[in-house]
């Protein structure tokens, strides 16, 4: 809603800039933007230059006949419009432009990805009465929107919305439980928890960007307070250790290790995993890369006689997108596993899982062990994810269920045109995970760069490639 206001502000601003009397303003803005791009990025200097420019322009607006007789709100909205316009133009130059910041972003994100696997509200002093993980998802969503915007104000609004959601939830919880009204003792821990769970993209860079380029006279009062809380959440997360979470050192390390193993299992190059599965199923991995990775999982590991399905790979691939994706199943299973107190018991049947490479003697034992671990994690997660309660390694009713589901879907998708459509849809979905893609599954994929949103005109490409 607030973003809509700013949108109107920008519209109004642009409208005024189209007036003949605004020609000087337009010239100033353009030359500022141009002058900016002549220098190498220097955050301190760039920030000061932008702040000074915005301040000067706002003062000039105030004195100009274009805004004669306008209210403070209208002038303010012109200032917002200017900030949004200038920063949208400068965005690619000043956002995450230093290698150090990019690195910091990556480290922070990795840390949150690990911690989020095991952190509990109690670790952060969130009282039971105020715990509400389901509703916190709403706050997480607000935070995850932060990269949808370029203007500092819009990014800030994502943070403020997240804080508002948390405040409202805390307030409701306090009313329901007769607790004292929530203050910072309650708010900050929840914000930290929500942030860890949300793992918002490029958090460090986003905060720096807001700090540097949000007009300083507007980053005051309540906005400044909640922005400070976000900075403080980032700072806390960056330095999280066992003590910060009141976890035993050894327990913390164990949790981190477990999270690392889990994540490496989830994010491993799927081809690599597929080949492992192929090897187990007795197939040559090189052959199998011809088909999409998703049907590899299904065809070669789930189905005993996978080679028979080779000719129909393409159809199968499209149809499989109709059932929950493997990664969805995995994630679901992983979440269930983490909630289980006896997760170590679940893994007891896999003796190598917690073994050290030194325990074994063959030379390439390490490789083998890593593969084995990944495989087991995948398997357990898949079993859990597909609803199977028992976690016995090779035999499983639940996997058969998945198989059955695949078959059904496949048969129902006989229509070639329909298949193509599904295939295209799937292609759209996966266009972003470049590394995981199997290049020759669809020629058209090469027509799109990774970071490009696939245009609707895709059908044409497909036609030419067929």
């Amino acid at each position: 809603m607030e973003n809509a206001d700013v949108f109107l502000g920008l519209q109004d601003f642009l409208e005024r800039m189209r007036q003949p009397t605004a020609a000087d303003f337009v010239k100033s803005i353009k030359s500022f933007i141009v002058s900016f791009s002549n220098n190498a990025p220097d955050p301190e200097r760039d920030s000061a230059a932008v702040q000074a420019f915005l301040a000067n322009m706002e003062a000039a607006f105030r004195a100009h006949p274009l805004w004669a007789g306008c209210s403070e709100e209208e002038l303010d909205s012109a200032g917002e419009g200017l900030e949004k316009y200038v920063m949208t133009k400068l965005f690619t130059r000043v956002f995450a432009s230093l290698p150090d910041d990019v690195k910091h972003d990556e480290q922070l994100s990795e840390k949150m990805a690990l911690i989020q696997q095991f952190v509990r509200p109690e670790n952060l002093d969130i009282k039971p009465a105020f715990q509400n993980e389901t509703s916190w998802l709403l706050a997480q969503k607000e935070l995850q929107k932060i990269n949808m915007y370029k203007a500092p104000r819009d990014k800030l609004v994502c943070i403020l919305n997240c804080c508002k959601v948390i405040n409202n939830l805390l307030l409701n919880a306090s009313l329901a439980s007769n607790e004292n009204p929530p203050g910072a003792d309650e708010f900050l821990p929840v914000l930290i928890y929500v942030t860890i769970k949300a793992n918002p993209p490029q958090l460090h860079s986003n905060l720096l960007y807001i700090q540097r380029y949000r007009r300083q006279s507007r980053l005051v009062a309540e906005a400044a307070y909640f922005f400070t809380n976000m900075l403080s959440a980032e700072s806390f997360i960056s330095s999280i250790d066992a003590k910060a979470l009141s976890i035993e050192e050894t327990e913390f390390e164990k949790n981190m290790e477990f999270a690392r193993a889990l994540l490496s299992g989830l994010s491993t190059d799927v081809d690599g995993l597929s080949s492992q599965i192929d090897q187990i199923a007795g197939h040559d991995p090189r052959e199998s890369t011809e088909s999409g990775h998703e049907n590899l999982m299904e065809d070669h590991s789930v189905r005993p006689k996978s080679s028979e399905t080779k000719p129909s790979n393409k159809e199968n691939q499209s149809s499989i997108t109709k059932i929950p994706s493997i990664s969805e199943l995995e994630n679901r299973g992983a979440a269930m596993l983490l909630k289980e107190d006896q997760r170590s018991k679940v893994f007891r049947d896999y003796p190598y899982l917690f073994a050290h490479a030194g325990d074994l003697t063959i030379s390439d034992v390490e490789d083998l062990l890593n593969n084995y671990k990944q495989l087991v994690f995948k398997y357990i997660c898949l079993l859990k994810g597909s609803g199977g309660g028992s976690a016995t390694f090779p035999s499983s009713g639940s996997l058969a269920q998945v198989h059955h589901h695949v078959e059904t879907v496949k048969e129902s998708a006989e229509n070639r045109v329909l298949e193509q459509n599904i295939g295209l849809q799937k292609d759209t979905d996966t266009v972003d995970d470049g590394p995981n893609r199997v290049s020759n599954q669809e020629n058209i994929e090469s027509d799109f760069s990774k970071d490009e949103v696939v245009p609707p005109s895709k059908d044409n490409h497909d036609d030419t490639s067929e």
Partner: protein
Amino acid sequence: MGCASSLPGRSSGRLTGLNNAENSGVPDAKNLRVKLVLLGDSGVGKSCIVLRFVRGQFDPTSKVTVGASFLSQTIALQDSTTVKFEIWDTAGQERYAALAPLYYRGAGVAVIVYDITSPESFTKAQYWVKELQKHGSPDIVMALVGNKADLHENREVPVQDGIDYAEKNGMFFIETSAKTADNINQLFEEIAKRLPRPSSS
């Protein structure tokens, strides 16, 4: 090219003056705006003090629209000046202590709260005083507040301890009860009186 020189000529002469004045909310000699940071152990009633001050009530079931972690309230003094407090609450749990500098940076006032029934919270308050003396801005106005004064039968920190410590450190001291509203307004009025006034030009 400097950006100022590329501005339309007619307005450039007025830039600096206008930039500082006029902007609503910017303080002048008669209307002060001050950032007040609340420090103290969790559970000493920091947010209750603020809510009492801002809303004049303690009723925890009353409908408020935002949390009490940030609130602002303007009071009028007898000399017809007004002071707008922007009150920043901080998380009092030990694990968040290291984050406090982010909050008290730029604060004109620090209110350090302890619970008169909890000696630990009094110790913690002394820690905050020392920290602010070391790292806070040098002209920060500090107040030491013993809250929950209504629970006198459970009192474990004698009034005199609070008075002595505050005096030694040049602080204003008061005991309050957010529950009964005792001394809540007095606390903020006394702080307002102690604020450094911008020299009238």
